[in-house]
């Protein structure tokens, strides 16, 4: 991991002991510099990096930190080479630009229309977007989901997976959907699938959009609807290291005035 730099103990220079209040002020000031309103308190034991999102983000961190070390401030975050920890492919295409903030979103509600419901079958995941920085422009967004080998019935067939944004839910008819991305693959394909959902981020600025519904449809070559679970797509009930998540890349506005305090 990261190299522990030699910590300089100024021998002989008296170290002033801070009072409790001063220590809190120091921490609050550093948190403010880091752009945090307060000290985050993650729920689950945060030292269990086996979940998919932290593994992916740790890989991305090492790529970005390495760039900063070498080139200094203007380092363009070129396409990072993701190696080692997570076997996930780097963000698709030239998506990784000079992002100021990369957020992996793991909080979602899952809903399935499966074999016990009328066709077409689908899987829907609604993500909480509150952590997407409001003051920044989203430059790219991806949805990552793990696919196992499909059920034996589809062994040799090709599948088409389409992902839509659920724009509006209607009580008496089908929801309004916006097509975001499509992928064609073999039913036996195994691994992470990466969908580009940047198009859905157009109306995330400000407080308009606090959650995002993504709906997946799977079809065979001849247009038969396939239950996403039977196609091998893992939802929240999959192992932690294979649970779906979203990643957003955003950039601060050119000169965010530092708020005078």
């Amino acid at each position, binding site marked *: *991991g*990261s190299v*522990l*730099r*030699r*910590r*300089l*103990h*100024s*021998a002989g220079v008296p170290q002033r002991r801070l009072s409790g209040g001063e220590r809190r002020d120091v*921490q609050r000031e*550093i948190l403010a*510099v*880091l*752009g945090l309103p307060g*000290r*985050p*308190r*993650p*729920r*689950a034991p*945060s*030292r269990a*990096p086996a979940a998919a*999102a*932290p593994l992916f*983000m*740790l890989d*991305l*961190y*090492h790529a*970005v*930190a390495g760039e*900063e070390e070498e080139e*200094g*401030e203007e*380092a363009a975050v070129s396409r990072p080479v993701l190696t080692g920890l997570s076997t996930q492919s780097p963000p698709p295409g030239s998506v990784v630009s000079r*992002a*100021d*903030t*990369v*957020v*992996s*979103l*793991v*909080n979602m509600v899952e809903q399935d229309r499966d074999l016990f419901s009328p066709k077409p079958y689908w899987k829907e995941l609604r993500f*909480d977007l*509150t*952590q997407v920085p409001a003051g920044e422009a989203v430059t790219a967004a991806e949805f990552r989901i793990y696919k196992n080998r499909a059920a034996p019935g589809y062994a040799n067939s090709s599948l088409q997976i389409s992902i839509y944004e659920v724009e509006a839910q209607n009580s008496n008819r089908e929801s309004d959907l916006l097509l975001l991305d499509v992928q064609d693959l073999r039913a036996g394909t195994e691994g992470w699938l990466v969908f580009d959902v940047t198009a859905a981020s157009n109306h995330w600025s400000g407080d308009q959009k606090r959650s995002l519904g993504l709906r997946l449809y799977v079809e065979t070559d001849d247009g038969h609807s396939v239950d996403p679970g039977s196609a091998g797509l893992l939802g929240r009930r999959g192992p932690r290291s294979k649970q779906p998540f979203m990643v957003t890349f955003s950039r601060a506005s050119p000169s965010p005035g530092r708020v005078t305090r």
Partner: protein
Amino acid sequence: AARPPRRRQHKKSNELPHPNKLPGIFDDVHATEGRQVCRRHELYVSFQDLGWLDWVIAPQGYSAYYCEGECAFPLDSCMNATNHAILQSLVHLMKPEAVPKACCAPTKLSATSVLYYDSNNNVILKKHRNMVVKSCGCH
């Protein structure tokens, strides 16, 4: 522990008369004997010492550095001096009470990235600009 400051040797330069040799004006100038010239010093910010490793995933801390040292005439080329700083240090020689020496400050800063959990267990990678001193100079 910080290294003991190296004693500065006087640079032998044949082209320009050494300031001390100019009649009258700079007679009382002493080379900055024993005082450190403006340069970068180690400063390590430890998230571990702050007790933050329950939410900061990486790094455990980072080297921020700081700038310290004299910006006294003559300003060597290694001191990244601006033209203005050179002039200011000249005027300081003549009117030390009226005009201060130039300041030793960062001339180049770079970013550092922090990977952390938020309170909802989302993982966030944030780049923070202007957090690491890459070089110091006289301003």
